[in-house]
């Protein structure tokens, strides 16, 4: 009999959500065959069966969140007896009788598909506090003996929340927790943001030309990613990471550009590798594919790693300028405002011109203001004369 565990798919991963089981209890499965789909703080992925055999038991249902390395089921041969619940390591002292398996998980609830049908093991006081604070015990991970939810676990999420009637509390977990942790660390970076106006009329004209008769349209953002990749490839500083712990600067050879993708539950930054070596069309296809898979939860962990520079474009949101936060360990990030129109005097005549503000936030430990201005002007130049890029 082989146990199936919630895998630890990344260094920072502490729990995973079973998005859905791909096999039912009783199904035969081969080693390496996909058995369940899980969601980590970063991505959704399929988990492979560690052995061939029959899926004998599932201890958790679709939608359940399970700490990493916890047994979620067993694979074996028909007729093998499985424990009523996954064995939980015992820390008790004395007493010759080994702890019985925790009895809170029904042996078979495969016929019952109600969500979160497992009753969380919690002390009475934890339940009392949770009821008072409106905390759902099912969302907590117990810190007590055998994973029991204790009062302190509830207090951790409800502390300082200053609960009033109607308020709700949810634990900080998953993608939101990762973002919170990274944003907090980013606040330590001495960063400067500077904005520059970029006229877009020529680029818009070129885009219309390129897209003429094409099914797959190139977006403004594709041009911006292209321009950024161009400028980053030319500038070692913008491919440099700071390693304070070891007192060194590391300049990356590859121009891998991260592209922020907004999701309902947070933000993901898939990475376009060697973006400077791709044509505008290739880059556009690649960016669309990554964004679509990010929204579908199908990105692999590696597709979110290794960027040297990030572009974030909130699109037609009406934003004029903003101060993007550096995506560590990048040295800088480029934010793009919405397209605006202005009246200008050109050659003695009034004309309307379209522009965006590009907002560059850079790590002042690595990059100084002059270098940043040169870099930003380079992007401006590329965008205002886009023909040189394509």
């Amino acid at each position: 009999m082989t146990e199936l565990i919630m895998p630890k798919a990344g260094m920072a991963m502490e729990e995973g959500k079973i998005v859905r089981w791909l096999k039912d209890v009783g199904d035969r499965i081969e080693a390496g065959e996909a058995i369940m789909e899980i969601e980590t703080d970063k991505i959704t992925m399929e988990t492979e069966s560690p052995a061939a055999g029959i899926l004998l038991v599932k201890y958790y249902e679709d939608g359940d969140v399970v700490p990493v390395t916890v047994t979620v089921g067993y694979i074996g041969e028909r007729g093998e007896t499985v424990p009523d619940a996954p064995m939980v390591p015992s820390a008790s002292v004395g007493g010759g009788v080994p702890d019985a398996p925790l009895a809170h998980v029904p042996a078979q609830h495969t016929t019952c598909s109600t969500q979160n049908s497992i009753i969380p093991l919690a002390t009475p006081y934890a339940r009392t506090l949770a009821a008072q604070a409106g905390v759902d015990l099912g969302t907590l991970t117990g810190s007590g003996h055998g994973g029991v939810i204790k009062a302190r676990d509830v207090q951790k999420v409800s502390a300082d929340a200053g609960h009033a009637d109607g308020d709700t509390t949810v634990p900080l977990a998953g993608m939101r927790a990762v973002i919170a942790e990274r944003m907090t660390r980013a606040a330590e970076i001495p960063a400067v943001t500077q904005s520059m106006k970029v006229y877009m009329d020529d680029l818009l004209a070129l885009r219309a030309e390129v897209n003429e008769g094409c099914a797959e349209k190139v977006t403004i953002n594709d041009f911006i990613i292209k321009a950024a990749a161009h400028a980053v490839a030319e500038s070692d500083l913008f491919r440099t990471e700071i390693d304070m712990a070891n007192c060194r600067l590391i300049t990356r050879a590859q121009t891998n550009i991260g592209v922020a993708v907004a999701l309902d539950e947070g933000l993901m930054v898939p990475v376009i590798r060697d973006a400077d070596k791709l044509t505008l069309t290739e880059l556009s296809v690649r960016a669309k594919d990554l964004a679509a898979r990010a929204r579908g939860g199908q990105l692999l962990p590696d597709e979110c790693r290794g960027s040297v520079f990030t572009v974030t474009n909130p699109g037609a949101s009406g934003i004029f300028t903003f101060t993007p936060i550096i995506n560590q360990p990048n040295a800088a990030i480029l934010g793009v405002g919405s397209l605006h129109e202005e009246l200008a005097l050109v050659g003695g005549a009034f004309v309307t011109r379209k522009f965006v503000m590009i907002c560059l936030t850079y790590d002042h430990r690595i990059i100084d203001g002059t270098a940043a201005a040169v870099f930003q002007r380079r992007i401006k130049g590329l965008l205002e004369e886009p023909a040189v890029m394509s």
Partner: protein
Amino acid sequence: MREITYAQAVKEAMSEEMRCDPDVFFMGEDIGVYGGAFGISNGMLAEFGPERVRDTPISENGFVGAAVGAAVTGSRPIVELMFSDFMTVCFDHILNQAPKMRYMFGGKAKVPMVLRTAAGGGTGAAAQHSQSLETIYAHIPGLKVVVPSTPYDAKGLLKTAIRDDNPVIFLEQKLLYRTKGDVPEEEYTIPFGIADIKRPGADCTIITYGRMVQLSLQAAELLAQEGIDAEVIDIRTLLPLDTATLIQSVKKTKHCVIVHEAVKFAGFGGELAATIHESEAFYYLDAPVKRLGAVSAPIPFNPVLEKNCFPTVEEIVQAVRETQS
């Protein structure tokens, strides 16, 4: 304040009550000339004479029955049963006569007697002289059951027992007889049904009585060194039981460990745990209630084996620690 032993406190309580109430008399095996198997009543024969300090034959069934009759007919007997283990030979009086009469006679009879007896182990007295059988008494409606842990409590509670119009089982743990403690010269009594918080604390309630109070207090000192602030509550009387103090304490500390010298299985700790679980304190528990008691075995004569039968300070410390983990 002066310090006296637990044994002296028991003698003082009996002597004071006998001085002020001529109806009180004392009987038992070897209590007169010999001064009692544990030396409690040394000098009492000389002070009160053979009418009021009566040596009996080895005949528990006879003299406990006689005490019930004397109580019903107007005296206030104190009976010493040399070892509480011997209650079985006079058990009909303890179970069917003394506690029932007041009820069965519609309140027309009362049974103001005290049955004092030496209980508990730790003296190398083996299986038939070392038991803690208080739960058996506590299971009988109509009896009151007292297990004092200090000289102060022993004196104050025994005086209350002698003045009580109902049969009282007064259990004195043998290892406590030589322990010393502050006892005022002035007269005082301690009412039944009032638990005593021997050490206030915030993190875990240790509910205990008798000799285990000392061990629990030692455990609390060790726990304090690790930052765990244990509250030690001595229930003093099992029946009537001060449930309010226990419930209030557990609501405060959120954790509860119960310690007694009697066998854990089906012991009084089960009643105490249920008291917590049946009360609103249940909703404040942040760990299961833990019980410590003697192993389910006749107490061995071998001193090493005997020592390992009973809860130890280390075990109490560990149990409290586990509630906090």
